[in-house]
C-alpha cells in the first residue's frame, strides 16, 4: 500500500490545496507547516503554470501571482527539501504536464521521491494518456492520482478504479475549480460504483468550501479536497495568511471527523 493510501486508513482526510509560490516561496513553506499542524491529512501543492486550463478565476490568479516570482521546479524541490524532516503528511503535486515534460520525466519523479512528494495529479492527463508518465512514476514509486468526473461512464470508472493508486480524485461537478453554492452530482452513486472495483480511497474536490458541504459529502467519501476557498484566504492575507488557513482547516477537519 502506498504512503498516500495508508494515510486514509481508518479516517477521513481533509486535503487542502495551495499554489506554490503564492505569494512567495517562503510563505508556501509556512503554509504547508501550518496546514499540517491544523490537521490536514494530505496536502496538494500546485506547481504554477502560465495557462492553467482546468482552473477557475481564483486559482488562475494564484498562478499569476506565483508566476511573477519566476519560480523554477528546482526552487520548489529545494524548498520542500528544507522542510522534509518536519513533514509527516503525504504531499502530492498538482501540475499541468508541460513543466514536467520540460524538466524531464525521469528526473522530475526522482526529485519528487527525494523531497518527499508521493503523488502527482495532472488535470491534463486523462486515464488514456497515463502511459505518458507511468514508466517513470512506477520507477520512482510515485502515485498517479486518477481523476474521475460526473461524466465518467461506469465502464471508464471500472477501468480507472482497477488501475488506481493513492486515491481517486472525484471531481464533484462539471466545469473548472471554484466555489459552488450547490453541488447537485450524486456523489454517493459514483463512489459506490468505484468501490465495487477497488479499496483505493475516494476524495471529492471542486466547489467545496463550507463545513456543511464537507460534512455532507464526506459521508460518501474518504476525503474532502478544498482549493479555491483556501487560496482566497491567501489572496486576502498574503504572507500573513498562515493563521487564517489554519483556522479554516481546523473547522473543516472537525466537520468531517
Amino acid at each position, binding site marked *: 500500500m502506498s504512503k498516500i493510501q495508508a494515510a486514509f486508513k481508518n479516517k477521513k482526510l481533509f486535503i487542502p490545496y495551495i499554489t506554490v509560490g503564492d505569494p512567495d516561496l517562503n510563505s508556501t513553506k509556512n503554509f504547508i507547516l501550518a496546514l499540517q499542524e491544523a490537521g490536514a491529512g494530505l496536502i496538494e501543492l500546485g506547481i504554477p*503554470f*502560465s*495557462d492553467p*486550463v*482546468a482552473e*477557475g*478565476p481564483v486559482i*488562475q490568479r494564484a498562478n499569476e501571482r506565483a*508566476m511573477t516570482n519566476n519560480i*523554477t*521546479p528546482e526552487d520548489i524541490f529545494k524548498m520542500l527539501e528544507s522542510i522534509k524532516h518536519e513533514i509527516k503528511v503525504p504531499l502530492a503535486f498538482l501540475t*499541468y*504536464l*508541460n*513543466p*514536467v*515534460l*520540460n*524538466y524531464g520525466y525521469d528526473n522530475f519523479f526522482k526529485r519528487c521521491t527525494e523531497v518527499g512528494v508521493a503523488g502527482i495529479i495532472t*488535470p*491534463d*492527463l*486523462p*486515464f*488514456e*494518456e497515463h*502511459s*505518458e508518465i507511468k514508466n517513470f512514476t512506477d520507477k520512482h514509486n510515485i502515485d498517479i492520482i486518477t*481523476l*474521475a*468526473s*460526473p*461524466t*465518467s*461512464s461506469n*465502464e*471508464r470508472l471500472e*477501468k480507472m478504479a482497477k488501475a488506481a493508486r493513492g486515491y481517486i480524485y472525484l*471531481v464533484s461537478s*462539471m*466545469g*473548472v475549480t471554484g466555489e459552488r453554492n450547490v453541488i447537485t452530482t450524486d456523489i454517493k452513486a459514483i463512489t459506490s460504483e468505484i468501490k465495487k472495483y477497488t479499496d483505493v480511497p475516494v476524495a471529492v474536490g471542486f466547489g467545496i468550501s463550507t463545513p456543511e458541504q464537507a460534512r455532507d459529502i464526506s459521508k460518501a467519501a474518504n476525503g474532502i479536497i478544498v482549493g479555491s476557498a483556501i487560496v482566497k484566504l491567501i489572496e486576502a492575507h498574503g504572507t500573513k495568511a498562515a493563521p487564517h488557513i489554519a483556522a479554516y482547516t481546523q473547522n473543516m477537519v472537525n466537520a468531517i471527523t
Partner: protein
Amino acid sequence: MSKNIENPVTGRFGQHGGQYVSETLMYALDELEQAYAYYKKDKTFNGELSELLNNYAGRPSNLYFAKNMTEHLGGAKVYLKREDLNHTGSHKINNVLGQALLAKKMGKTRLIAETGAGQHGVATATAAALLGLECEVFMGEEDCLRQSLNVYRMKLLGATINPVTSGTKTLKDAVSETMREWTKRIKDTHYVLGSVMGPYPFPEIVRDFQSVISLEARQQVLEREGKLPACVIACVGGGSNAIGAFYNFINDKNVTLIGCEAAGKGVDTNMHAATITKGRLGIFHGMKSYFCQDENGQIAPAHSISAGLDYPGIGPEHANLFDTARAQYVPVTDNEAIAAFDYLAAKEGIIPAIESAHAIAHAIKIAPEMPKNDIIIVCLSGRGDKDVASVAKYKGENIYE
C-alpha cells in the same frame, strides 16, 4: 460502443497529438469521435455538406493565375487558391460548416468557439445563424480591440462575444477559456475548434473539412497546366489552411510543401509566434506538439501583427510533417508580411488577409529563383478588409473605421 481505453494510442501523428484534457472533457471527445466516425461515411451528411459548401459558401474557390505577379517576379508561375472569395472571407467557413452540421446531427443546440483575428468567430456565428444554433465566441480582449469590426459582425449575426481577460488576452487565452466553458456545459454544446489543433479528434476533423482546398487545387492545376506544382505555400498559425492546402499533395513526393510561420519582429527577438523555428516539444491545449515556451516549460506569449497567427503552438500533424521532413516551415516577419500585403494589392488588385500575406511574402522570395515552367500555388486563405485599418496604423496613419 467505446474504444479500448487500455490501448489508447489513437489520434497520433508520429509522436504528436493525443488527448491531454480533463476527465470531464473525455466524455465530449468520445461522443464527438463516435459521431464523426459515423457521419463522415454517411451519404446524407456528405450531401448536405456539399450543398452548403457549394451553394452557400461559394465553392469551389478559384485557382487564379497571378499573371502580373508572375511577370514581375520573373520566375515560377504563381497561382493563388482564392479562399478569400469564400462566404465570410476566409477558409474558416469550410471547417465551420462541417462542424456545425455535425453538431446539429448530434443534437447539440449551442456552438462555442475561440477566435483570434475574428475570422473563425465570424464563420461560426454565420453557420450558427444559418442552422438555427445558439453561438458564443471567446476572443482575447486585445484581439477585440485589434479587430473591432469583426466583433460587431459577430454580434450582427446573433452571437454573444465574451472578451477574454486572462493571461495575454489573445488567441491562446481564448482557446483556454473556450475549453473551460466546454467543461462546464457539454450536453447541449459543441466546441467548434477553429484549427487543426487541440485534442483528438479535432486535428483530424478540421483537416478533413479543410482538405477540400487541396482536393480542388490539385484537380484545378492538373486541368490548367497538366502537371503538379513544384510547391504549395500557406501561412501557419495552428495550421488549418495549410493542412487543407497540403493534404492532397502529401503523397505527391515532388511537391514541396512550405508553411510560413509568423516571425513577428524577428526570430531573434522574443516577439514572434514561430513555433517550428523556435519552439520545443510540449503538451498544451490537449495535444503533444511543438510550442514556444521558456526554459521552465511555461508557454511563451506569442507575437504577430496577425491576430490569426498569434498562437504559440502548431497542430500535431504539421509537427509530424516537419519531423518526417515532408514539409518545411519558414519564418516570415511582420515587415515582410506588410510588404507582401502592399505588393499583392498593387500588383493584382487583391488585398490579402495579413495572415495570408505571410505566404505571399515567401512566394515573392522564392519565385524569382525558380524555373519559369515551375508552378507555385499559394493558399490565399482570407481577404484583407479586416486588416486595412491596422496596417494603416502600423504605417503611422490613423483612419476611422
